[in-house]
């Protein structure tokens, strides 16, 4: 039976009337138009559909939309401000971390969640955090470099503050 569900996506509230069998990935993409979340495997193994739920990365293909009620959902569309891209988005551009782009939204959101809790991760920590996000084009190297670059920027700011 269809249910009325309120979802909070990128800071805005949305009302949808959906079957409980609808996945978060489907509702985001089909009902709300957030097609930036890609669906690659439908079984949680590839990471393309990653979104943030209360700041933590989850697989939107393995969550019922009804499970996301009351939680803050962040998709790739919610990362940039009016004025500027998120530093990770800019770093992915500058460091050539994008090829076909299908894994990119999930990669960036997963990296964002990492930097939110650990602003200065080591290369190893970045690898660990991104280990579940598959990419078939880049070989990951430039992705890791992009995340390291944002981390290093964070460090510089910290240094400035201390200075």
């Amino acid at each position, binding site marked *: 039976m269809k249910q009325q569900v309120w979802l909070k996506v990128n800071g805005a509230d949305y009302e949808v009337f959906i079957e409980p069998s609808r996945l978060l990935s489907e509702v985001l993409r089909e009902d709300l138009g957030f097609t930036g979340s890609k669906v690659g495997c439908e079984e*949680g193994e590839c990471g393309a559909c990653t979104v943030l739920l209360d700041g933590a990365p989850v*697989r939107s293909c393995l969550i*019922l939309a009804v*499970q996301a009620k009351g939680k803050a959902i962040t998709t790739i569309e919610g990362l940039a401000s009016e004025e500027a891209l998120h530093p990770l988005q800019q770093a992915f551009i500058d460091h050539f971390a994008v090829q076909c782009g299908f894994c990119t939204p999930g990669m960036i959101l997963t990296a964002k969640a990492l930097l939110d809790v650990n602003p200065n991760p080591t290369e190893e920590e970045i690898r660990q955090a991104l280990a579940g996000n598959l990419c078939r084009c880049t070989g990951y190297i430039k992705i890791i470099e992009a995340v390291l670059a944002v981390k290093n920027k964070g460090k510089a700011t910290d240094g400035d503050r201390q200075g």
Partner: protein
Amino acid sequence: MSSMKSFDYLEPTSTAEVCELLARFDDSARVIAGGTDLLVAMKRRSLNPLKLISLSKVQGLKTIEYIPGLGLRIGALVSISDIQFSPIIKEKVPVLAHAAAKVGSQAIRNMATIGGNLCNAAPSADMAPPLLVLSAQALCSGLTGDRRIILEKFFTGPGRTSLTKGEFLAGIEVPETSSSRLCSFVKVGRTAVDIALVNTAVAATFEYPRRCLTGVRIALGAVGPVPFRSVKAEVLAEGRSIAADGWIDETGMAAAEEAQPINDVRASADYRRAMVKLLVRDAFRNVIAQAILPQDER
């Protein structure tokens, strides 16, 4: 749009209500916790429940509690990443945090729950071996109240548990004594993020006066229909000195013999058996490395 069969999504708010719904709908209902295993099965249509009973609105299932003298109580809905990062778990039973870190990817761990990991009853469940060696108990809530099942008796077969009609797993209890135990969890996969081809946990108490390990527990996963304790191997390791190490290989071999691995697409039985021996060895090495010795004995 999903190709899952449609179902009703129920959100009971109390334990009693959950049990009542489970009893009423019986086989046509499934409990959903994180859903990371269940939804895959439903998408593949190997499970087609008509009712999904969510535990998310039931109070008290999301907490990790330490009760002095009793131990840890971990609610069924505690996520694997909460276990991975919980300060109290890191302090009292770090092996659970280590094992949690090996479950799937971070995004899966953020949704997957301890209850789901155990109730899915996969022989390869990474949380099972450490809980087995710590003599954890499953706290099961039913129509007639709660009962505790020692975890060894909880798993009855691949995908099967000893939960009865109207009953669900409310949490896990890890005894107080666990925090003084030396523990290790090790795992082998094909790549870093993988379902275990074999996983192993070892727990023991270090008796400093005799420089030996007692109360040895060894648990193996993915090499039998359920995660299980390798009792024969435990006997071989019991009371052994940490100075000698010939017994470690012996123990590993005994565990490998006790394992009943199958051939499947992930690995052959041969390979799994060989890995049991290695993992048991590595786990004991880790355990021994944790034994606190005076400086001159190290």
